[in-house]
């Protein structure tokens, strides 16, 4: 079941080869340093080169799998080698589809254009979360006010990926607080804007390979052209289609689920490898633990693939996507923890990969909607839980 096409496997094989040779050592280096690799680290130039040579299966007509399944397959393999380096990868990142869907033609050209075919590493960034609220977007306090020349942003953001090295950060702020959540708009804050201050790279338990940044917006001035979609965005057919799709199909959570599966698979392989080399595999207890790990891993991957396949098949997948997200994230955590136990004192010494995975894994049940939020989403659909 669920075997990939030969064409997709070619791409996966490229990611694997690159991951083993470059991504994992770079991720370990960043973890040892306790800080992300600097933007001018040769890894990033190498990454840009790799992606130019191997653009991946996203636009490859030869791959029969749909886009969500392709994305899941690539994410899983990437995260197997290092989840943190995956987030640190140069590119417009998370906001890319948002800008592509909701940006004006000029914005798409101005903000996404430089990434196309760029030979040097560039980053984009998306700033949503605030210290006062993670899941509850109604609690967000960042405000935008109109000025003669554009907008003034005031507020604070935290846990923002790659924000300190990005060419621009797409910042969510409320332009019309009276309207509540629907007053929220997005603004491009370009690098060097002096209103973006107090930039601090957070000291995290794990996933130290990418910057999680907090910053303050203090009368941060952005030009009028920097509001996403323009002052009065047209309901373009493209953006409304995007919105309609988002109502019943979700691929973002599936992508995170796939990454969690990759991390979990890595922990499983480390534990099994250690058990076999140390002879612990002969212990019934160790084998039973590995069996439970393998089973949970398999279930997580099947859930993820089914959620992706449904998205590609235009079958509503909201429950599937949330289920895959929370289950895969818990799987990553459980398997890394069980892996610590199997590897034992070698893991305690802090040099073994499984110890890093143990610190990395926890984040996956927090980002992109915590386990609690995913359950709320599922409960809305399964029992009509009121908001």
């Amino acid at each position, binding site marked *: 079941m669920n075997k990939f096409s030969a064409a997709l496997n070619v791409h996966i094989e490229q990611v694997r080869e690159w991951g083993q040779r470059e991504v994992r050592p770079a991720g370990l280096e960043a973890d040892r340093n306790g800080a992300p690799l600097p933007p001018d680290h040769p890894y990033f130039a190498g990454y840009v080169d790799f992606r130019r040579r191997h653009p991946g299966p996203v636009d490859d007509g030869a791959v029969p799998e749909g886009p969500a399944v392709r994305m899941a397959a690539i994410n899983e393999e990437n995260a197997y080698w290092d989840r943190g380096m995956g987030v640190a990868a140069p590119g417009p990142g998370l906001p890319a589809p948002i800008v592509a869907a909701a940006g004006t033609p000029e914005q798409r050209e101005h903000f996404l254009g430089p990434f196309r075919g760029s030979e040097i590493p560039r980053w984009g960034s998306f700033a949503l979360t605030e210290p006062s609220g993670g899941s509850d977007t109604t609690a967000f306090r960042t405000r935008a006010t109109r000025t003669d020349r554009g907008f003034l942003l005031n507020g604070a953001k935290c846990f923002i990926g790659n924000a300190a090295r990005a060419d621009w950060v797409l910042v969510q702020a409320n332009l019309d607080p009276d309207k509540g959540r629907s007053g929220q708009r997005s603004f491009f804050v370009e690098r060097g804007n002096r209103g973006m201050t107090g930039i601090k790279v957070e000291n995290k338990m794990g996933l130290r390979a990418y910057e999680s940044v907090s910053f303050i917006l203090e009368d941060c001035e952005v030009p009028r052209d920097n509001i996403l979609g323009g002052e009065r965005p047209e309901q373009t057919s493209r953006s409304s289609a995007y919105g309609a799709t988002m109502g019943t199909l979700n691929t973002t959570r599936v992508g995170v689920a796939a990454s969690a599966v990759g991390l979990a698979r890595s922990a499983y392989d480390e534990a099994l490898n250690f058990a076999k080399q140390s002879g612990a595999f002969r212990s019934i207890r160790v084998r039973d633990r590995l069996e439970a790990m393998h089973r949970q891993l398999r279930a997580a991957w099947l859930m993820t693939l089914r959620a992706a*396949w449904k998205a590609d098949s235009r079958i509503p997948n909201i429950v599937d996507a949330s289920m895959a997200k929370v289950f895969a994230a818990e799987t990553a955590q459980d398997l890394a923890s069980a892996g610590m136990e199997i590897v034992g004192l070698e893991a305690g010494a802090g040099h073994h990969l499984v110890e890093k995975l143990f610190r990395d894994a926890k984040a996956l049940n927090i980002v992109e909607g915590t386990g609690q939020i995913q359950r709320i989403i599922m409960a809305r659909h399964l029992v009509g839980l009121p908001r």
Partner: protein
Amino acid sequence: MDFARGESDEIIAETIGRFAADELRPRLREFEAARTVGESVRERFAALGFEALDIAEEAGGAGLGLLARVRTNRLLAEADAGAALALDRFAPAIYVIEAFGGVEPLKSLGMNLGQSDLRFALVTDPGAGDVAGVRVAGHVAWIPAAPADVLVGLGPQGAWVLKDGFAFEPVRGAALHAAGASAVRFDGTPILAWHDPMRAARALARIRIYYASLIWGVLSDAAGFSRSYALDRVAFGKPIAHHQALAFLIVDMYVAVARLGLLIEDAAMAIDAGEGRAVGAAAAAFVDAIEASRFVGPNGVQILGGHGFMRDFPVEKAMRDCRALGLLAGGCDSAREDAGAGLAATISERIAA
């Protein structure tokens, strides 16, 4: 991606689903008290033509494979797992005979699978595996079955088939009463016997998936029934399903059932495709069914509160049925052993590629 279901799958699902809802579910407690579904229900089911759904065509079946069987089993067990067993006169015993290539010899012994009153039963016999002609003897405390005409014994080393020399004795039974409940004593000379651990393992894999799929149905119903109840039942001013902690429990039960279903279908496909991982995957799915039973079974009752403890509702039966099904096929620990034994080969295996 093989998540899609074909048109014939849909037709089978619809037909079986309607039969289960119309003929089985309403008579749940009646079957339980009578310890049988009765001949007329059995005949109506046979008339649907899905009796030998997954048995190879050369053996007289429809040859649709185990995947079709697990989906059918799930639907029947959502109505009544005991009835599902009662309606399958081949029980999983036929998998043993098929694995050892025994359908032809059976015919040569004058047994025709098409004979509608010929019933098979299966017991676990750790000593099975000698060649034909050597007497076998033993006692099994319980199988969820009424007296059968052919008794099949399976152990890790091999299997045997008895046509005589065994006796069924009725017992109370903990659950699955529609199928009957018997202790079996055997002491006779097999008409067929084989020594072949590999084939024994393959037969056991199908048997485990067979029972796991019944558990899947039972848990699917327990989760679904208790969810519906929680939407109807009002406490403290709203449906109890809208109290967040209970909503999360319902979600987690749903996830446990979904997880189990994916593992069962995955293992069934691996068996149908003859993949090397099939034996391990089937054992793992059976273990998962038992673990899911521990969680979903009692919580199905819990959500109904005092009503759940009463026989007026099906959730107490579900709790007993899933627990009892998990005792079959050699039980949990031997499955865990077999699932673990296959792992040495899994390192750096790309999990889904």
